């Protein structure tokens, strides 16, 4: 389920605390504060989210080989994805930020008075977001909100698990950036893999849109490769991403 929130007050962007890690060399993922909504809530939930995200990011590093370093940005707490306006995104892009992640956890009561644990994970795919300011879609900024189906600790851990989302978004961001840098071979590989990951299981409408974008970009990469290399023009089929389903 996706929840795209309304625009915040005009000074919200200014509230985005600067993270010194943006000045580190190389491509990077910024992991902002993971907070308990309203300042209260169960600490195990918070630690669960942090711990599971750390595992997700390690898996990303191991399995994709992307030369991306994850940096913690303490005290940086985007109120929502819309604070990432063009000036902020351009700065982050210039500093080789690929993805920014933040999250909130908390307990909510529904109309019947039952208590549920909720987690909201925000992502900004910086290169995709930058592109959206000129091309319009997809926005590249999204918030995934989930509610635990039970109050068991396992349900909470599953709630915060981003094992499928993190690599997909990182690959899509990396591929989009590489397209801008005319690194079409690597871009195509990452975009095809991102499309495959985004479409597995039961993708949300937002993930389907991102997958369609990934495939379109992958096709464009293929066209560029063929234009630059008569050999590849001879060899490569016209499919977007081969047999990727």
């Amino acid at each position, binding site marked *: 389920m996706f929840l795209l929130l309304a625009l915040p007050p005009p000074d919200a962007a200014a509230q985005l605390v600067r993270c010194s890690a943006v000045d580190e060399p190389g491509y990077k993922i910024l992991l902002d504060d993971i907070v308990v909504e309203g300042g209260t809530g169960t600490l195990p939930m918070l630690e669960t989210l942090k711990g599971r995200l750390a595992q997700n990011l*390690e898996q990303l590093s191991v399995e994709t080989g992307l030369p991306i370093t994850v940096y913690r940005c303490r005290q940086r707490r985007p109120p929502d994805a819309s604070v990432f306006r063009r000036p902020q995104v351009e700065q982050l892009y210039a500093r080789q930020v690929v993805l920014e992640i933040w999250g909130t956890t908390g307990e909510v009561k529904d109309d019947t008075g039952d208590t549920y644990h909720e987690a909201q994970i925000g992502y900004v795919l910086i290169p995709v977001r930058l592109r959206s300011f000129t091309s319009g879609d997809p926005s590249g900024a999204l918030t995934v909100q989930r509610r635990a189906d039970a109050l068991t600790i396992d349900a909470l851990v599953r709630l915060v698990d981003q094992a499928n989302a993190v690599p997909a978004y990182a690959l899509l961001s990396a591929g989009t950036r590489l397209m801008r840098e005319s690194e079409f071979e690597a871009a195509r590989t990452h975009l095809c893999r991102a499309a495959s990951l985004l479409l597995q299981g039961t993708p949300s409408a937002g993930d389907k849109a991102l997958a369609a974008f990934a495939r379109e970009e992958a096709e464009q990469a293929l066209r560029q490769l063929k234009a630059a290399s008569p050999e590849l023009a001879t*060899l490569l089929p016209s499919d977007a991403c081969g047999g990727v389903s």
Partner: protein
Amino acid sequence: MRGVGWRAIAGRAIGIGGVAAVWVGLAAAPARAAVQNVPCARPFVFTGADVNVVVLPFSAPDEVRVPPGVGEQLAVLVQREVMLAIVKYGRVGSVQLAGRPEQGCTPEAVLAKLVGEQPGAEAQLRPGAGLVLVWGRIYTAEEHLYLQTYVRFLRRGVEETVTVPVGTVRLVARPSAQAFACVPRRIEIDDLRRIHDTASRQALVFDSPDSTSPRPLPTDGAFSYYVLETRGDWMHIREHSGTVEGWIRATASSDTWMLRDRMAELWFVEGAVVYLLARMREAPPGVAQARELAPASGMAALARAADHTMEAYRSQWSRGALDEAGAVSSPSAALALGVPMQLRAMLRLLAPSAELPEAAHVWSGRALERLSWSADAESLHVVATLAATGTGPEPQGSPALAARWRDAQRSMRRALSLEPTNPAVLQTLEATTAAALRATRAAIQMKGTGPPPDTPATRELSRQLDAIRRLRAKAQPGGGG
């Protein structure tokens, strides 16, 4: 199992700051050796071993609280249990590292030192030798420990490919990855207690498995030992300097559970060790018949053993998983399931005399279902399928054979579209294109007399073959690519 007698090498292994000559002596020791508590900043392998397993501490994020020492205790238990499992296969070693990430305890830093890309290892992996690197991330939530193990396997300086002759054609393929994340797991608080208790028990050495008067093992600095023999869960060890000898309990097990039950990836670690040993025993490439002449008891036995452990991993891997019900279909488990399947396919291609059940192309097909984005997965499946359907000399002029090669070539072009610079894919694409061209011409020639006419199909294949050869030439150093 009876062990062999080992001569103790003079000296005493000590940790960082110790005498370099001692480490040299230890590194060159005959294998079936292990060492614990080696500082990550100065990692170590047994250079006399064909394959080393190196286990890093399981680490937690800074902000997440875990019971102190759990990560290192878990690493000790993993290293011991793996050692017990692999000692029967021959020249192997296992190393348990200690330290924190800021002290160099990261897989990237350790691997770079062990393969000589960075200075700092007490002993490096020798060229061609195998390494299985194991590390993990842990965190706790209420009464549970959640862990995720990561595994990397490699041979130093060796491309992990398999070369398969299909008639006169030589095809190359490789797995989609040599590192992956295992499925995340939950361990109960009772298991945590058992880990602690077992680690405490394993810090003891007994005169015999039946003895009730243990002595404590040395705890200062690195502790290294040779494995003289095994008996059930016990290993008969002699410490490097010979001053300590006795029996230690090697498995983290009790009457009710085993570490391997909670961490099925230990089966894969064992399987990866045996796979690497098998690769190191095979005939050198380019000698088409040598594989069949390899001692059947060596290569075939190793292939069967590796396949057996991979099957144990496959049948148990979701046990205790974070999302046991959904684990099988989760895309995040694609490599954790797919790569072992690919290794099983490769074992069948390497050791047909092992007579393993289910053909290579069955396993490569299963892997491809999970790894549809991978050019290497597509390529391996093409190679395995061709190996299954055309292993003899090509019957001249068979239209069916020509069609088979053209199908394979189309699949290889699809693979190339996923990774346009993949060298293994390019190599096999060239081979399949050349074979398709020959087979198509032969099929045309069978229909009439005289040399085969050029057809649109042969002209297109010929054009593609030229393109591939130009691409490969450009990719060579100085090739202008």
